[in-house]
């Protein structure tokens, strides 16, 4: 059994651990799972149970490398949260990854300008690679700015 992560993976991890992934998901079990898997993949994770909590975290100064959002959530949906984020110059550049059960997820993700989407139930390996890609792009964009 190969217990060593790939070399590229280690290198990536070294670059990326400074900014967390902001997970916005109302299902507590799924929050736990995303957290577990992303941390295992070398990311810091900050989790919020809906758009309102996530917005609070951003306002409090959390600067994530990627926003991983569900769509249907109580209090503030993923759609509303995305709208808030995109109307604010501080967060507009943050890549959006939509992970939802919503059956029109492809259209909605495109409409929200998401860099990627995954429909539940998801493959956790895909989740890590999608977040990696988005994070890398985010970092490149951030360096350019």
């Amino acid at each position: 059994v190969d217990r060593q992560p790939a070399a590229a993976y280690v290198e990536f991890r070294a670059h990326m651990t400074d900014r967390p992934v902001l997970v916005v998901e109302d299902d507590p079990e799924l929050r736990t799972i995303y957290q577990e898997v992303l941390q295992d993949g070398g990311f810091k994770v900050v989790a919020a149970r809906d758009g309102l909590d996530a917005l609070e975290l951003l306002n409090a100064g959390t600067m994530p490398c990627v926003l991983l959002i569900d769509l249907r959530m109580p209090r503030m949906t993923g759609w509303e949260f995305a709208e808030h984020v995109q109307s604010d110059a501080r967060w507009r550049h943050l890549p959006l990854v939509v992970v939802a059960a919503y059956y029109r997820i492809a259209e909605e993700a495109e409409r929200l300008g998401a860099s990627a989407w995954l429909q539940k139930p998801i493959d956790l390996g895909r989740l890590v690679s999608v977040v990696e890609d988005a994070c890398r792009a985010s970092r490149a964009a951030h360096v350019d700015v």
Partner: protein
Amino acid sequence: MSTSELDLADLLRHVGDAITVQAADGSLVFANEAAAELLGFESPEALLASPLSDLMSRFDLLDADGRPLDLGTLPGRRVMEGAPAAESLVRFRLRDSAQDQWSLVRATRVERDGTLRYVVNAFQDVTALKRREVELRLLAEAGEVLGRSTDYQETLSELAQMVIPELADWCVVDIFEGGTLSRVSIAHHDPARIALAEEVQRRYPPAEDSGVASVAASGEPLLISEVTEEMLTSSARDADHLAMLRELGLRSALVVALSARGTNLGAMTLIRGDGATPFSRDDLPLITDLARRAGIAVDNARLLHDATESVRLRDDFLATASHDMRTPLATVLGYLQIAQRHVATLTEPGRVPEFLARAERTAVRLARLVAELMDVSLIRAGQRLPLALQEVDLVALVERAVSEHRQLSEHHDLTAETSPHPVIVNSDESRIERILDNLIGNAIKYSPDRGRITLATEMTAEEARIRVTDQGVGIPRAELPTIFERFSRASTSQGAPGVGLGLAGSRDVARQLGGDITVVSTQGKGSTFTVHLPRRSSPEAEQPAVEDAPA
């Protein structure tokens, strides 16, 4: 005159077609019985004795399209001016009766030694043919119009426009919408008249037992050949009303019902004004046929709408159902994938049992959701749920529900205040669990963070009760009577409603268990939902909670 000529004149007198003979100067020298009748005279003699000015004042001549005819184009005139023969279709409208007669008029020149002697005019009555032609064209057009759109209000408006002025001066269509008759279209060639009619309708709404309403209700046609002054006076509510009714110029009316598949859908009212032929029984077949076609069109449009709507509802339900199942499925698969990874990489194999336990717990939740989905579908179809009755300890059930929800909602303070003794009922455990899941879920949804939610059990002589009390937003007094209605949740909660039982479904299930759900709520302070269950459930004796349970 020779004998043979006399015979001929006698013969002509009794021919069915109208025949007249004009001398070279245009004066009438012969007319038969039919000609006298056509032109409104008692006998050929009276016709022949009448001066031309009197003759021409008795009727109007119209062309095939209903426009006043230029007398110079009459076949007799054309022949008089040199044509060997001429023919045209002419409508005679007698001024006394306003009856139209269509005639195919043929004029022939009779010469002797190259000089014009007579012009013979033969009038073939083609009224029945023409009427049939108009009817067929109208019915064909109606079929076309009615088949054009599935928006029946639009098609009925077009139909109303189409029948004027051919069949009537006014066409009004009223359709039952939600049990009351509402006007979907009104047509008249003059918009000012329509405005006047609408004002009358607005200021003096028709009584429940108006002619139109009774036709729409009974399906029997109503023929008013002549709208008399007395009728206007007796139906007017005041002088203004009477003046307006008079101004509308209603002279004759025919009201027929629109129906389809044995159900009356509304009524079509045709009205003719001054100068038009009054309606008679002869008009009934055509108008009834039109109304029948219109009724079928309305019915089809409604059926299509209903079918489309139920397909849409089903699609929504399926979309939401698949959404609601994907989330727990994601959890189950998530834990299994993490467990697999830990087994494969041996990073933290000690945690694998925890992940498997979580996956199992969620799979159980998913299985419950699937069962609930089935119940919702049975309830929507108005069917009884297949119950699995057994002894159930409500205390144990409530404690289990509280501990499950505690794990899922770290933001709320869930407490069980149960009696120290078991509270046993004979009921369906999984159904009670689902009702509680819904009530707890609602309590969580409408409570602020750290809000306290308490579940309590109670046993009386007649029944067992489970109370779910929250300190949430509460329910406004005005909304209390409707919160158990289906879909009422959709308008108040954020986002789309799930496919779960909801409050309506929960109460349906409680009733099928022989119990009920009641609520007490104070806005701003919180709500208490109480599930009532009979100590011994005997659902066979209960009326189903739904209206149309199958036999």
